[in-house]
């Protein structure tokens, strides 16, 4: 199957005999990159307010983040935090749902919620001249929602249909089962609602979640854009200063279960013409100081286009279009995950190559040139990612959610540069699981079973997530 990349038959389509520069141009000296200074205040009620000016275009990004998300849901009510973040947008003491939508639209924005394991964010981007009104509106939604029963019914119905619809997506199924298998009973296993958990959520539970978690001492406001930071702090004081503190219930985080052996979960999806693979193991939480060295190891292994996995199973073997690995860091745990969609015939060949590359990283680390290249890559794309208002907002949001060093954005490049080859090797060998891994495959077992005979203890599931006998 393996094709050598020889160039014996190469020929050049030369359009002309005009001279070309044969030598690759050198790269000039690093040009310094400085983010504007940030203003950070804590209001008397505990709300942190962070404002930074970035003014290429006259726009503003406003994000109010509550530090409670899916992991604060009771297990039987998975989706409560997510539904709450939607429902608060459906009416306040002074605005109807329609008025909220129409007002935000007319200021050039769109209000939306983003809910993850550790947080719920309400965010809007609009024209910066409306910054005070946008902040006032977000504050109103967070502080004074009326949680109308009829709107709750509509949103539940909408989410219910999404729950059914998602079960047709192989990438969704692979990821959901991967997380469930990895985290077991840990709160981080709660990633998406089901028909049952949605059914159990009612207005009283949403009201209770809002009352308990939407509190200034559990939140921060982040504003990035063409604004005067001191004026924004004053607006925040005026609009959010009266928000009452509360005692915040915290989920208890047991130690995540440990994974031993290579455990295969196969989700039977008839008619699949590809195997959708997700595999990996626990790594580190987002705030772990080893984040930088593991990020480098991951970039070399599979986290960049120019990575070993992409070269191998895409550019040499042509197994797949979009292979890659990613680190996910939560507040209390984290994991790395490789994922790819490959045609049925190369399912086991892909697994073999992926583990071969992991084992190589674990045993040998990276070459000098690879490490140098990965450092340049990560240091280079950081200013690219933070050069837009939305990119900077996203980076800073993580700083305050995960309690990263306050100078995270300012020192990221230097921290990456300081990582040693030994640290990368050690990160890879201790953190990238190989013999102990969760493997999930969504596909058609009848088409790939002969390739997977080495797995003796396979758990079979249907697309609803229920255990089933081995498909025939």
């Amino acid at each position, binding site marked *: 199957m393996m094709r050598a990349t020889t160039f014996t038959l190469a020929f050049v389509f030369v359009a002309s005999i005009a001279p070309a520069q044969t030598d690759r141009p050198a790269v000039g000296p690093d040009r310094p990159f400085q983010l504007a200074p940030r203003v950070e205040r804590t209001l008397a009620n505990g709300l942190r307010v962070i404002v930074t000016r*970035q003014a290429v275009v006259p726009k503003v990004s406003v994000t109010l983040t509550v530090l409670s998300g899916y992991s604060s849901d009771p297990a039987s009510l998975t989706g409560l935090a997510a539904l709450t973040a939607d429902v608060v947008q459906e009416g306040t003491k002074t605005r109807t749902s329609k008025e909220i939508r129409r007002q935000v639209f007319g200021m050039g924005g769109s209000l939306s919620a983003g809910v993850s394991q550790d947080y719920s964010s309400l965010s809007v981007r609009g024209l910066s001249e409306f910054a005070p009104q946008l902040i006032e509106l977000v504050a109103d939604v967070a502080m004074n929602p009326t949680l109308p029963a009829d709107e709750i019914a509509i949103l539940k119905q909408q989410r219910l249909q999404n729950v059914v619809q998602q079960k047709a997506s192989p990438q969704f199924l692979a990821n959901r089962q991967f997380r469930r298998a990895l985290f077991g009973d840990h709160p981080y296993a709660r990633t998406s609602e089901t028909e049952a958990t949605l059914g159990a959520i009612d207005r009283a539970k949403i009201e209770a979640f809002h009352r308990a978690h939407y509190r200034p001492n559990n939140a921060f406001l982040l504003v990035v854009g063409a604004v005067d930071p001191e004026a924004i702090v004053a607006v925040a004081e005026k609009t959010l200063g009266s928000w009452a503190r509360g005692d915040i219930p915290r989920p208890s985080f047991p130690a995540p279960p440990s994974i031993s052996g290579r455990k295969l979960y196969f989700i039977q999806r008839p008619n699949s013409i590809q195997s959708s693979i997700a595999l990996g193991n626990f790594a580190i939480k987002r705030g772990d100081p080893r984040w930088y060295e593991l990020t480098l190891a991951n970039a070399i292994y599979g986290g960049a286009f120019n990575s070993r996995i992409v070269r191998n199973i895409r550019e040499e073997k042509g197994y797949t279009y979009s292979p890659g690995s990613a680190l996910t860091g939560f507040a209390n745990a984290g994991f790395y995950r490789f994922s790819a969609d490959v045609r049925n015939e190369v399912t086991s060949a892909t697994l073999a190559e992926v583990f071969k590359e992991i084992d190589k990283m674990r045993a040998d680390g990276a070459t000098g040139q690879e490490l140098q290249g990965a450092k340049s890559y990560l240091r280079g794309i950081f200013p690219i990612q933070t050069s837009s208002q939305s990119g900077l907002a996203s980076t800073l949001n993580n700083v305050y959610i995960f309690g990263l060093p306050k100078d995270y954005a300012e020192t990221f490049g230097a921290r990456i540069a300081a990582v040693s080859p030994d640290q990368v090797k050690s990160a890879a060998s201790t953190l990238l699981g190989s013999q102990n891994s969760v493997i999930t495959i969504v596909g058609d077992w009848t088409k790939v079973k002969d390739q997977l005979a080495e797995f003796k203890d396979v758990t079979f599931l249907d697309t609803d997530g229920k255990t089933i006998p081995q498909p025939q």
Partner: protein
Amino acid sequence: MRTCALAACLAALTTVAPGAQTSAPSIGSSFSVPVVYRKLPNGLRVVVSENHAAPIVVVEVMYRIGFRVEPQNRTGFAHLFEHMMFQGSEHVSKFEHVRIVNENGGDLNGSTRFDHTNYFETMPSNALELALWLEADRMRALKITPETLKNQQDVVSEEVRVNVLNQPYGAFEWLGLPQKANTNWYNAHNFYGDLTDLQAATLDDVKKFFDTYYAPNNAVLVVTGDTTVDEVMRLAEKHFGSIPSRPLPPRPDISEPPQTAEKTFTEGDKLARTPAVAFGYHLPERMTRDFFALSLLDPLLVSDESAKLYQALIKENQIASNVTGGFNYGLGNNFDYNGPMLYTFRVDYRPDLKGVDVLKVVDKVINAVQEHGITEDELKQAKVNFRSLFLENIEGGFGRSDLLAALALYDDDPNRINTILSELDKVTTVEVRDAARKWLVPANRTSIDRRPEGGTR
């Protein structure tokens, strides 16, 4: 977002809604983009837009050849060819382009669209010349082998499988609908490619396509970011100046005869578990008055939860869970194409209903606009909203460079980036009503009702 994203760049690109000002106090209108536009003697267009906010540059080369005009027995070839542009050029071996860009702190991609194919690098600005050299090298001479061609035929086949054949709904709203709505082959073929056609491509096909279309006089080079006009022009001349221009073939007739009766289709879906309906209206020609009028009606119809269709379908009638839509849906925005185009919508609806039930509600919403028009207040809000999204898109990075490239290639006027909003400002409520009356009618519409058919359970 790996190289060559028909679909990879997709989802994020809903309508690049420009906003616009009302006549008197122009909201957010003080902003303008610096643009310098020149042409090299070989015909290569060069656009420079300085932006010193961060030490980064975007280098983009856009060729005026897309999937619309690919060879007729080679569906998907324009996109396959795009992949080959990463497989080696005269001084850069296979995949080295990617390694060189990443190892010097940059990211890159390419994408194939209706009327163009683009290639871009986002780099630290100290690597500007490196990016220009890489682009010039592959414009001058591509170097491929039977092995690299076979490799990318396999990769692209997997791309089609992951984005179309193994997905519920099979991209029916952006890949399937144009094939049903249009009648001219150029607009109506499977542009992601039939797997048999993709595997049938030869080295000779690649060479011929390159020789025919990848000429400097069929392209634009855009550089935005932390550089100067003088530096870009000097380096463009140095690296691209000696690439000779070539005669270009005449453009084929891509026009689409007017549709006179509604077309409706039903498809079974072996993978999906809930139904969805997609429908599209042929759009008026780009940059005409009707085009601008519909560009402003669009965010009122189908932007977020505020929009008329969301309110009608999800809130009032409660028959759907999601509605999306836009010009050049799934592939771009209002400005980055140059030929017949659809205004496409997709509605995910309740399993106990049929697509026609959705269309009835849609028609009610549209009929109200046709009958009563929109209010002055709505028009003003639409202009603000369009302006806001437009500004966000051209803040920097690829959004700015890609719009400048399209305006240079299709309008020979990248400065139009600074006048589009004022053209939108002139739109009146009467124009919106009249454009809706003319274009958003069933006779101009094609729909596909996509229904689950056994399968994935």
